[in-house]
């Protein structure tokens, strides 16, 4: 068991090293010369050269690679060109909005998705089951940002029940949540559709299994049967939940743009537009690290919840 966990941790570390090296390569492949961009339009060649030296861009790629890694390991992500302050500070300012939105959306998706999926799986062929299937098919085909437009048109413009765009960073908690309702619903619907599909399929599979028939035929009360079924169906859902949760950190980009929310997504888009590559790199490193971390955690939880996986 310990050996398995160690080998898994090693594999995560290798993936991280490969991925972060890829990020380094990707950032060097971006169009434009960082020193020239930082200098602006009115700089002379000599000034750009000085900047290049200051940024370490005149060093060999190998040296730059070393500097990059020592920064990543120490959590030093460099300085933002546009905002002229450490990238870590920029991220710290913008992360809370995205985290609030992502967790709000995830909880909604979880409630709707698992709720519908389990109810539908419990009564296959029922009107509720058909409605759920319809919901999941449409939910998966909805363009996220367009669904956001519709919500704005209906609930913000027509009924005036919610704010159209924006987010009061300094406002009180209730007001801020109010601004997050429509964006969170927009994000939650397609994810709920995914979860409902998988939950329904997992439940149907377990309800049709031999052990369920045995449990029923020997007269176990429905509650006990449910417990056995849940114990078998649930661990299989964890990887999808992790993918959705981990993906939300950057999955919010489009919705932040639609609703004008000053989170990590808008920061990333702004940085791409302004060629502020240290920030692009910082957001990428943060997003990838969290994504890999959450997925690994889900693997561990799945192993903890499903003893069969421990003997592979």
């Amino acid at each position, binding site marked *: 068991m310990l050996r398995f966990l160690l080998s898994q941790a090693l594999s995560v570390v290798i993936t991280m090293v490969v991925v972060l090296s890829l990020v380094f390569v990707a950032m060097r492949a971006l169009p434009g010369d960082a020193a020239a961009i930082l200098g602006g339009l009115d700089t002379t060649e000599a000034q750009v050269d000085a900047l290049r030296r200051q940024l370490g861009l005149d060093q060999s790629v190998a040296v730059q690679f070393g500097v990059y890694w020592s920064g990543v390991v120490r959590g030093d992500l460099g300085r933002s060109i546009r905002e002229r302050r450490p990238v870590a500070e920029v991220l710290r300012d913008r992360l809370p909005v995205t985290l609030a939105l992502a967790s709000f959306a995830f909880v909604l998706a979880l409630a709707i998705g698992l709720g519908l999926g389990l109810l539908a799986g419990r009564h296959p062929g029922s009107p509720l089951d058909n409605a759920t299937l319809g919901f999941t098919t449409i939910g998966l085909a909805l363009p996220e*940002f367009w669904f956001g437009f519709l919500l704005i048109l209906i609930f913000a413009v027509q009924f005036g029940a919610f704010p159209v765009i924006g987010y009061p960073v300094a406002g009180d908690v209730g007001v801020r949540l109010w601004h997050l309702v429509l964006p969170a619903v927009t994000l939650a619907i397609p994810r709920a559709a995914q979860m409902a599909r998988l939950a329904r399929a997992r439940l149907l599979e377990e309800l049709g299994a031999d052990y369920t028939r045995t449990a029923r035929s020997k007269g176990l009360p429905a509650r006990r049967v449910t417990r056995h079924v849940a114990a078998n169906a649930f661990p299989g859902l964890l990887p999808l939940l992790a993918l959705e949760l981990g993906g939300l950190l950057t999955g919010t980009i489009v919705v932040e743009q639609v609703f004008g929310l000053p989170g990590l997504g808008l920061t990333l888009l702004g940085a791409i537009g302004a060629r502020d590559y240290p920030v692009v790199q910082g957001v990428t490193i943060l997003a990838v690290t969290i994504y890999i971390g959450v997925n690994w955690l889900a693997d561990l939880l799945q192993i903890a919840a499903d003893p069969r996986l421990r003997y592979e």
Partner: protein
Amino acid sequence: MTRVRLGVLLAVLIVLSATIGPTLVPFDPIRPNYTLRYAPPSPEHMLGTDNLGRDVLARSLAGGRVSLAIAGGATVLAVLLGLLTGLSAAGLRGAVDVVLTRAFDALLAFPGFLLVLLLVTILGGGVWQTVLALGVAGSPLYFRLVRAFTRSELQRDYVLAGEALGASRPRLLFRHALPNFVGALAVQAASTMATFLLVEASLSFLGLGVPLPTPSWGNVLQDARSFLTRQPWAAVGPGLVLASAALALQFLSDGFRDRLDHRV
């Protein structure tokens, strides 16, 4: 069964609208007409006109061509990339397998949309760049599928028999193993194309995919965002078409998946 029919019907309608549709609407999707800005929907302009006085229906139909071509091309690219690497990994094993698997694992370690975004940023905006970015980002799924399918097919007796008869490795892979899972790949590809339609629209909506003035469903909607309250139909119409296209592909994918399952 009904889902397949519905999917085919919708898909035919959408392909028709993208191929012959633009010729049926007598308006230029790109040239502005400043005397007709923000015209409300009318029999002549069924979805009204936009901020530059262009017919929104004409732009949606022309945009469909671009969006469908990008999503279709990217899907083909993703499947081909996955097929070649997956067959190589499963067929050659050893170092090739390890390196390819690690490389695709690294791609999978990026949240999907972030990966597409980074690739498009590196490649720059444009139709071909978007196809390439989507194709690369979509390929790990097909690599994994093809590798797993091929490995399990290679365990079968008919492969052993083929080997005994002196069939070459490529022949076994392409002529014998591949036909057994090509249907499953096609089912998955329909679903991937639906996703790509939505992702391309998101990219163009963010201004990173197809550059203006070339219309695509995404940037027609990006335009519509700026006058959303003034001209809601300009946003609702193209979005509905985009959603129906994605829906059609999803129906096809689900429908054929069920058929494949029943046969097994």
